[in-house]
């Protein structure tokens, strides 16, 4: 994990050895994280992994048991939420139901006793950016889900904060609106260049929005990298299986030395590992898991060369743009993604080639990438 001290000067949010437990339940454990200035960081994980808890700690809504939090190089561990220079957008929008949109936007400023003309100026600017001027006099109950979430973002915007915190902001919206607002949030980030920390369990949101993704599991960050690295070079089996839909194919087997090469062998079938970029020299006799994504297995006409396997079509799932084949090979069922126009009958024989430059090998014991 990133832990060099020099990174602190350029980072916007720093989390140092943060732990949080409720009674005997440990939610976050010795967590370190540096978020650069202007970065869009996504905290990704399934429910209960501690991602929202971490965000609430950064916001100051939860007190950590141990550790420190820095925002703009200032230790804010004991600061009140309002003094941290953060704005937060919630999953349920959390708009004050009795106030108009305008009053919702200006509530924080009115509490802080900002002069009236300054409030008007900031509300006008925020509503201009988010295109919600026509809604200013309405109550939240008269708005659609997408409009409500826009107002919620506006509430963070008017307060001129350094860091935006998003807690699953799109989870309550329907699929179409979600993808629209996703683009808008990205556009907003490009325009404002603020630091944004975004919690989600949706990997599409994570991959499309993030500069870097932190994948969390049981209160620990499993991998912190840019989306491409996370997708192509997952650090362990959990990350590999969490990212990607359909999930990566995992074949358990072992490494075997054959004729000067180390190959992967499962159920008597051997796979050449030519092109695999290993962290350490591969040696025979080690139990491993080979992971290959559905789109990194080439079928019939796509095969450019190299080792060719033969498999049988078990199920075909046409998905429009893509066609997903479930194939039986070497005692495993694996999914393969091909073009939507190419169709196969169940039981048909197909030829396969595995792209080992894009594959992942994990130790069967530690499940770490090798």
């Amino acid at each position, binding site marked *: 994990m990133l832990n060099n001290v020099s990174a602190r000067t350029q980072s916007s949010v720093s989390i140092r050895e943060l732990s949080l437990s409720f009674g005997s339940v440990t939610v976050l454990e010795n967590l370190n994280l540096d978020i650069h200035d202007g970065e869009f960081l996504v905290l990704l994980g399934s429910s209960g992994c501690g991602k929202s808890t971490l965000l*609430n700690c950064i916001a100051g*809504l939860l007190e950590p048991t141990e550790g420190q939090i820095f925002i703009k190089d200032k230790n804010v561990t004991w600061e009140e*939420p309002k003094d941290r220079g953060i704005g937060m957008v919630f999953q*349920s929008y*959390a708009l*004050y*139901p*009795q106030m108009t949109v305008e009053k919702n936007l200006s509530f924080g400023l009115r*509490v802080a006793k900002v002069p009236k003309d300054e409030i008007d100026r900031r509300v006008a600017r925020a509503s201009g950016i988010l295109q919600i001027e026509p809604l200013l006099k309405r109550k939240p109950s008269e708005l659609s889900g997408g409009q409500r979430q826009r107002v919620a973002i506006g509430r963070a915007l008017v307060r001129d904060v350094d860091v935006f915190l998003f807690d699953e902001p799109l989870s309550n919206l329907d699929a179409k609106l979600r993808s629209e607002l996703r683009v808008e949030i990205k556009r907003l980030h490009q325009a404002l260049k603020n630091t944004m920390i975004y919690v989600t369990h949706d990997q599409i949101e994570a991959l499309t929005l993030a500069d870097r993704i932190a994948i969390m599991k049981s209160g620990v960050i499993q991998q912190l990298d840019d989306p491409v690295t996370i997708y192509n070079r997952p650090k362990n089996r959990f990350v590999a299986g969490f990212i990607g839909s359909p999930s990566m194919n995992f074949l358990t087997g072992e490494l075997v030395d054959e004729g000067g090469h180390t190959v992967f062998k499962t159920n008597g079938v051997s796979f050449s590992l030519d092109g695999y970029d290993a962290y350490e020299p591969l040696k025979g006799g080690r139990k491993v898991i080979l992971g290959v994504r559905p789109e990194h297995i080439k079928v019939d006409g796509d095969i450019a060369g190299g080792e060719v396997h033969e498999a049988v079509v078990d199920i075909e799932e046409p998905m429009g743009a893509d066609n997903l084949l479930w194939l039986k090979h070497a005692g495993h069922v694996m999914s393969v993604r091909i073009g939507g126009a190419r169709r196969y009958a169940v039981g048909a024989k197909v030829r396969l080639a595995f792209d080992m430059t894009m594959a992942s090998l994990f130790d069967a014991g530690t499940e770490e990438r090798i």
Partner: protein
Amino acid sequence: MDKSLTMPASGPVSRPGISAPAGSRLETGPQGKRPRKVLSSRNIIVYGALGLAAIYYLIPLYVMVVTSLKGMPEIRLGNIFSPPMEITFEPWVKAWAQACTGLNCDGLSRGFWNSVRITVPSVIVSIAIASVNGYALANWRFKGSEIFFTILIVGAFIPYQVMIYPIVIILREMGLYGTLYGLILVHSIFGMPIQTLLFRNYFVSLPEELFKAARIDGAGFWQIYFRIMLPMSLPIFVVSMILQTTGIWNDFLFGVVFTRPDTYPMTVQLNNIVNSVQGVKEYNVNMAATLLTGAVPLIVYFVSGRLFVRGIAAGAVKG
């Protein structure tokens, strides 16, 4: 998804494969909503039982109203169900302004004003404190808040009788025994457990994220209470007000224990009028006095019944 894969832009209705069978006219036979019999055995049982229950509760009220409107000669005839032959409001006037209890002969009016002076401050004080209690317990989970809450709830289950004598001593030491202030204090304290529970449960049912958002906006304990929570809590305030008003108005035990004859609440005075053993039993006056005493809770229910139901069903408040 690719545009070409979606449905073709909606043109004429006759798309191949989706069109209705030729002619698309309805066939004979069942169609639309199924008719239901009004006099089904189910309806008869349900409405019959409801009707009986309603009559069972309404008959005593009917008897009281008609009796209170009769003169004494007519009552002596004995038919308590017959409507009054000659309507007179004399008993109501007498009950309100002339009936005697002990040395006082100014009717129930004295008790009524005593009850108002007891109920209004008790309701306001208890709701004001209980709502802040509930808000603090629901949103600001301070250290020991769970224990505090448990103690408060246990308080709701201790029988009143156990506490009466100690409270008499406490009020005496405080110099409040026999005064209206003493009774107001007692009512406020005894309402606290249930009222706090009521408010806490309501505030817990409000979305927690609203509270978080307000904190991030920089609002403090009182600002969140007054500017965010209060405006969303009208239903529960109404429920609480109804429960407290009717509870305190109908109280007899505390009234008779903690006040003196000239500060007796209406219920105690009603008892003294009805149970006076001197002279003739004036049934019409007694009935009128009883109706007058019960009028306040009745009016409260009628006026706020709709809000009451809404508040009881609260929790469905959308953020």
